[in-house]
């Protein structure tokens, strides 16, 4: 009786934790199977414990090359999308002008469009313009789909900021450039950082749009996709686990820094 009462009272907690387990289960499997020594080409069944893959993470041809290519594209796409997106966000949050509704819908549409549709149409354009697929077409596509997410993140932050802070700076004889650098930018920074982080993750992980616009260039997700047919090396699990660990550490550090700043 007591047990059923307890379960009934904590039903939400139990269901929520169940969902969390569902979300994290693949990560656990990826971690465990990074220590596997598979018999054949496919790393789907547990054979025996080994740390080989961890000591030779680049032991598979093309894997680390595709990884560094993806990192390079993600960095450039993040820079491009963050700069362009922040400018649009400031224009939308700070100014009233006639084209605002049109601009807002142009920003919203790429987020509401299935990726295949965007991917196929951009590839059709490149194909007909005779542009060779490769690094540049991937970068152009990535900046295109990351842009809207940056605008949304930065706009939310700038909208919630008190315009009187900037007026105060101007009243204290700060030049517009000084006001921007010393007041506006620091306040908008968390929004810009969130947008940049999101673009990095989206670009690094994108498969669908890249698959249509990469030609024979192989990014990391495309390497993983190809390896699913040819036989997945254990090293993929190593990299998946390392990415998860780096992400968790980054977010934890960010939280600690944020908490300390709030206290001081």
């Amino acid at each position: 009786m007591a047990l059923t009462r307890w379960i009934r009272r904590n039903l939400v907690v139990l269901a929520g934790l169940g969902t969390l387990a569902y979300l994290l289960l693949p990560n656990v499997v990826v971690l465990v199977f990074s220590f596997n020594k598979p018999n054949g080409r496919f790393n789907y069944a547990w054979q025996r414990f080994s740390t080989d893959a961890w000591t030779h993470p680049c032991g598979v041809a093309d894997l680390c090359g595709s990884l560094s290519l993806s990192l390079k594209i993600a960095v450039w796409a993040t820079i491009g999308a963050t700069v362009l997106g922040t400018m649009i966000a400031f224009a939308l949050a700070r100014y009233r002008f006639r084209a605002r509704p049109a601009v807002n819908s142009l920003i919203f549409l790429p987020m509401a469009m299935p990726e295949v549709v965007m991917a196929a149409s951009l590839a059709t354009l490149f194909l007909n313009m005779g542009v060779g697929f490769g690094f540049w077409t991937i970068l152009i596509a990535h900046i295109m789909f990351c842009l809207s997410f940056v605008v949304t993140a930065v706009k939310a932050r700038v909208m919630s900021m008190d315009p009187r802070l900037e007026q105060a700076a101007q009243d204290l004889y700060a030049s517009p450039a000084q006001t921007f650098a010393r007041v506006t930018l620091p306040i908008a920074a968390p929004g810009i950082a969130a947008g940049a982080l999101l673009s990095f993750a989206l670009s690094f992980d994108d498969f669908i749009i890249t698959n249509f616009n990469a030609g024979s260039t192989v990014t990391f997700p495309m390497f993983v996709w190809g390896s699913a047919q040819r036989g997945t090396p254990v090293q993929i699990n190593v990299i998946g686990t390392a990415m998860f660990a780096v992400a968790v550490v980054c977010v934890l550090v960010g939280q600690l820094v944020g908490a300390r700043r709030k206290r001081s």
Partner: protein
Amino acid sequence: MSVSRRAARTPLRENAVRKRLVPYWLLLPGILWLLVFFAAPLVYQASTSVQTGSLEEGFKVTWHFSTYWDALSAYYPQFLRSVLYAATATVLCLLLGYPLAYLIAFRAGRWRNLLMILVIAPFFTSFLIRTLAWKTILSDGGPVVGALGSLHVLDVTAHLGITEGQRVLATPLAVVCGLTYNFLPFMILPLYTSLERIDGRLHEAAGDLYARPVTTFRKVTFPLSMPGVVAGTLLTFIPAAGDYINAELLGSTDQKMIGNVVQSQFLRVLDYPTAAALSFILMAAILAMVTVYIRTSGTEDLV
């Protein structure tokens, strides 16, 4: 507003004009990028869908509208399957995601940040790697299939036609499971955002008025979280309907969705008009469904 007022105060008219142009200069590069690499390709795609020809001879616009009809009559099973799978995954995401979003928003206390991190962190591991992990989890003779089999769940699901024999991989169940898994964070985050905004005192007030927890949820919490529900279902349904990764990795040829068809028409068959027509039909179908959904759910301010 303050900006324009300050501009009006400056004596030089030239300065005022320059200030009025500031937003346009800020917008120019980014909007140009979207127009050239997002909007123009869609227009171009529309013209491709009414072209005929071949890769060797080149394609010409011949206003060949029957490509649409041919594509639709050849691939309507994949269309229907996409809508069905995506809708099922969306409902499952809502059912699974709501308790977790609720838990983080109201019951987590000092664990809130940690739980949030655990929801977001999988985002940063390659989703293809995580989807491949489901192949291991659901593998034939694996623990999940073993447990479901011994509980006779697989007999029931096989009877319903969502699994086959004693296996889960390469069945509709596996594909829907993968879709649900992959898009779950897109449901949880908007749900959490809208739940977090709800004033906790409303719950107390409902309790003071002798509402049972279930009644409080039904009459107070859920209606107030509707913006999150609408945003979450859209963010889940739209990408799920166009996805081809889950069907490819976890399904078989019997579970192909429309994304798989577009992909193979474009990248393997090189039949660009058909690929263009198919992606336009997908876009139109989604647009129509989303419009109806937003109308009926009554939050038109969303779009």
